[in-house]
């Protein structure tokens, strides 16, 4: 029961960045369990896409939801039982295309969930089409002449949506990512962690990231100004700048949750009906 593995056969391509995310996540959970978080109170949510398979690979409560809906589902779980630690895994396609409304509104509400975005900058499982974070000029099966759209900067979007915890990790920096995940889960509020995830089969970005990624210091996390600056350091396109990883912003605000209703409260129907007479 304590093992985090399942019987499911892993079907990611050998070398896929998703493996790093899986390992980092398991380490984070193990560490949290070791620190007294009960295993049964974790719930992972995922959707459709290569990334979504992660739910099958984790011996934890899980809700493998629809494409684009993991954040909506995660939110439903948290408002139904606030004791649970809810982590939503989602791809860039699911998060920034199909389900972007949930990202923005869940961040705005400050629902107390953690969102881990496997950003491989394409729809991978449907065999390589562009997403909101694909670089400009991207040639996928639906854009043989190159996509003319510029990518979104997801961190900027999360910031504009009032997210109270904004971070970026890199699937190849497992220890760093593990710590981000722990911080995200511990943060009371909406934790947004964008993860750079190379896709071996369609967009092998290991070298690109390895050359550019650097770890930021954890200072001034509640400064909007600093956050804005750091968020804009990399424009998420194919440029030559450096790519900071770490926590960009963290602030405490009231969270969105249901009131805890007394379990066996007796509802006085007669009294209510009386008002209708």
């Amino acid at each position, binding site marked *: 029961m304590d093992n985090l593995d399942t019987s499911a056969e892993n079907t990611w391509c050998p070398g896929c960045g998703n493996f790093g995310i899986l390992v980092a996540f398991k380490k984070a959970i193990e560490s949290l369990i070791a620190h007294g978080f009960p295993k049964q109170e974790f719930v992972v949510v995922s959707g459709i896409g290569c990334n979504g398979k992660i739910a099958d690979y984790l011996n934890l409560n899980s809700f493998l939801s629809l494409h684009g809906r993991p954040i909506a589902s995660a939110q439903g779980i948290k408002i139904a039982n606030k004791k649970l630690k809810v982590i939503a895994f989602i791809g860039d396609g699911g998060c920034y295309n199909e389900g972007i409304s949930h990202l923005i509104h869940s961040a705005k509400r400050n629902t107390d969930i953690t969102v881990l975005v496997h950003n491989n900058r394409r729809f991978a499982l449907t065999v390589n089409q562009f997403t909101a974070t694909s670089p400009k000029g991207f040639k996928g099966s639906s854009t043989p002449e190159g996509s003319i759209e510029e990518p979104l900067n997801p961190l900027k979007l999360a910031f504009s949506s009032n997210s109270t915890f904004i971070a970026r990790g890199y699937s190849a920096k497992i220890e760093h990512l593990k710590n981000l995940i722990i911080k995200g889960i511990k943060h009371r509020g909406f934790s947004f962690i964008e993860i750079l995830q190379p896709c071996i089969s369609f967009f092998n970005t290991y070298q690109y990231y390895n050359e550019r990624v650097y770890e930021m210091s954890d200072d001034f996390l509640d400064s909007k100004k600093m956050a804005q600056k750091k968020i804009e350091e990399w424009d998420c396109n194919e440029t030559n700048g450096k790519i900071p990883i770490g926590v960009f912003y963290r602030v405490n605000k009231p969270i969105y949750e249901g009131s805890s209703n007394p379990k066996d409260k007796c509802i006085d129907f007669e009294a209510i009906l009386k008002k*209708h007479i």
Partner: protein
Amino acid sequence: MKKDYSILIGGEAGQGSRKAGLIIAKVFNDLGYRIFIYDDYQSLVRGGHSFSQIRASEDNVFSHRKKIDFLLALDDKTIKKHRNNLTSKGIIIYNSDKVQLKEGIGIPIETICRELKGISLMANTALLAGFLKTIGIDWKVLEKILRREIDKEIVLNLKIARKVYQETNELIKIKRINRKPLPLLTGNEAVSLGAVRAGLNIYVSYPMTPATGILNYLAKHKRDFNINVFQLENEISVINAAIAGAYTGKRTMVGTSGGGFALMTEALSLAGQAEVPILIVESQRTGPASGVPTYSGQSDLWFALGAGHGDFLRFVFAPSDANESFYWAGELLNLSWKYQTPSILLIDKQISESTFQFNEKLLNKLKCKKALLWNKKGKYQRYKITKKGISPLGFPGEKNIISKVNSYEHNEDGITVEDENLVKKMQLKRLRKFQSMKNEIDKMEAVKIYGNKKSKSAIICWGSTVGPARETAEKLKIKLIQPIVIQPFPENQLKRNLKGVEKLISIEANSLGQLEKVLNCYGIKPDNRILRYDSRPFLPEELTESLKNIFSSK
């Protein structure tokens, strides 16, 4: 003859005719009358024309009537639109500061309001006070109800009412009936109460007429009902959050109309595959698309029956009034949990926003029934293969439970499978569950009969159409057959009730005969049909007329 009054009060949106109508109804309720209120309004916030039509009767009533005994007019339009329907002895009472009329009883409402430093929004109070005096209602009764119903500026309102009351002549004297008043509920309130009675924990919604009333009512009473109420960013978020909440062990419900329901259909299929209970209230309005948004219709039946991709059944229940809505909303929540299935309570504007009298005995007929829970033995498997196709529930957060649900086809542990044998195994499990659902339907009163049960002539109708049709059936002494459950289809019960029927006429508020087509699937072929699709509800007089024509023409 038994007393049966029909009162119409109308004015511009914002003039408070709806509120006044409710107060009048409550006065009659207090006198022991049976009540029905129809509210008619346009999709606008100020101006236009809206009206309430109150039926107050010695007998039970389920519909308003075409003919009006008392026409109460806050404005000119009300008179123009409705005086045709006034009975020969009918009385018009109107705001003589706004309306020029030779007949009827004019009350200088604006003048009085101005004199007493009231605002023109209190015109409705003035008008109803004048009306109630005209029909001889005791001031004490009026004052009691006003005090209950008006929470802003009650003193001023009472002053105005009092003054009009004193200056108006009593024309007739409505008699009191020796019965105690009953709670008056809209269909939306009844649905809310029924769901809460059956253990609702969370209501999630996005406003949409005519289902918004459920959101408003539950939000207002969330502390009384010990529930949580959330308005999320769109219907897709709503349904997905609600399904996830149910996975977590909380009874959840969502409410919307056709357009919002459309956006929920992908997740409906998810609930079917993942076997998560969810109750969807779909209150129909005139379609397609934005249609005629504040008016009624019964044209989403096919959609409700087939919505969602893939093979799965859902319960689709169509109650016809507040009492049935209360009971079936609750039972449907129970059944959703018993069978871990999505369910649709299909109502419409006519039920949602009309006001009915509530049968308090129903309270004790409905309770929260526990779902099948894990017995805590062995390893927990969310999709354990069982004989009846139902796997015991266990929820995240509970010890020794790993609960995995999945939108993909899955094995007993909830892990994705693609192997053909495993796929088939799980499909078979669900097929067995669907069979259990069918068996369940056979055990309940899925079909109701009204009117003359022995008649060889019968009408068949569903949902809000039953109200006016019931009155017609009783009048014409024919049989009325109402399928309340539509999926799984109660074929046996229906056929049993059709025995001996020689002429069958279907009545629906849609243009394509949606229930009729469903009946056809089971070899039931109505000989005739009455369809209404101008967005307005059926009225008993018109129905009676149409039926008489049909019967006499053959």
